[in-house]
């Protein structure tokens, strides 16, 4: 257990020291959300209607753009190789790094979401659902994204390819997340949507690190 926590601690330590990544993700989140009133018009009723979808799409894109720092830097300076040799199973290493990624990307997005929801005039009934779906859904974004990040490790400028691979896989998370908030806003039962989202994330926890580890192993050979 201690080596596992040490991997998470290392990534967090580096994120704090190097700074910037979390801040950039938050700024991107804010900027993207800002584009919508500018593009569609500031009419409050329309913004309220599209708010859940816009928030989730923007969060999803912000999470995706931060994926390349999950493995790339460590791959390039030999740290990923050394992590493989540490005695921890590669799946555990991937899971640890994914947890650290969520703590430095997903969690801040989750905390910023209600503020941005206010900007989009989202109905107050939706806030609880927004926080809950982001809490459950953003880990899934990190987990699924890890697979894409691992597959594109050896590809130069693999960022766009990463988007192509990962965005279709994000669609179920998007759909369940937004429909839960929509249901809450309209006074309907949000539980089925939340349960489906939870099922997705729970299934992703064992499966995604395993697939990502297989892809990392390929890149290191």
């Amino acid at each position, binding site marked *: 257990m201690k080596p596992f926590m040490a991997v998470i601690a290392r990534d967090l330590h580096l994120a704090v020291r190097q700074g910037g990544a979390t801040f950039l993700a938050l700024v991107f989140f804010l900027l993207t959300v800002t584009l919508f009133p500018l593009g569609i018009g500031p009419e409050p009723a329309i913004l309220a209607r599209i708010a859940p979808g816009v928030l989730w799409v923007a969060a999803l894109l912000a999470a995706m753009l931060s994926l390349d720092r999950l493995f790339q830097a460590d791959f390039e300076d*030999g*740290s990923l*190789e*050394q992590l493989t*040799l*540490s*005695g*921890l199973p590669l799946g555990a290493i991937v899971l640890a790094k994914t947890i650290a990624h969520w703590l430095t990307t997903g969690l801040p997005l989750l905390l910023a979401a209600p503020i941005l929801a206010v900007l989009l005039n989202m109905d107050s009934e939706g806030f609880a659902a927004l926080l809950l779906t982001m809490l459950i859904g953003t880990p899934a974004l990190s987990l699924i994204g890890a697979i894409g990040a691992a597959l594109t490790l050896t590809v130069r400028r693999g960022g766009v390819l990463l988007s192509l691979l990962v965005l279709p896989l994000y669609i179920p998370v998007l759909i369940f997340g937004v429909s839960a908030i929509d249901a809450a806003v309209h006074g309907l039962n949000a539980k089925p949507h939340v349960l489906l989202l939870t099922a997705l994330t729970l299934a992703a926890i064992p499966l995604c690190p395993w697939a990502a580890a297989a892809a990392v192993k390929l890149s290191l*050979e």
Partner: protein
Amino acid sequence: MFEGRDIACERGERRIFSGLNFRISPGQALVLRGPNGSGKTSLLRIAATLLRIAAGRLTWNGVDVAEDPEKHRTRLHFIGHQDAVKGALTVRENIATWTRIRGSSGDRIGSAMMAFDISHLADTPAQYLSAGQHRRTALARLVASPAALWLLDEPTVSLDSDGTACLQQAIMDHRAAKGMVMAATHIELGLDDVNILQLTPQ
């Protein structure tokens, strides 16, 4: 005892070598010699289970390494071409991170830094260090946490003569404690009583 029998290696779609045999007993050092492309790095990576063997067996005290590769990795240190040193962390933090991830206690970090003469840089962020100092930081890992087998791929790159001397001393101490070394180097490491494995390109 670490042994390899009939090892064959393929990279891409080419066979780099085949039918390779070696044996390292506790306290011994095996030096790999050969021209570029003869597979020295590949053999070291195979020994570290980073690269899959195309044929043959690796055994540790008679037990096939492939049965539990994770356990095998805890027995070795691998120093490759890259240093795995993070610029944002200090020298001490760099070494400490790796010892913690390997599950070792941190009480040998001080002596590791002394062994490679970087104690005065302990609290300097690695981004301000030279390539040679980076290398010393990477090599300090060898001493900071214990491992029976040291796999070194051109360890003296970017080291000056003092740094090379530190490495020689570290290897000597390791061998005296019954540790094993497999190293690819064309520099005379000044080690006595080494076995040489000559690799020839196919």
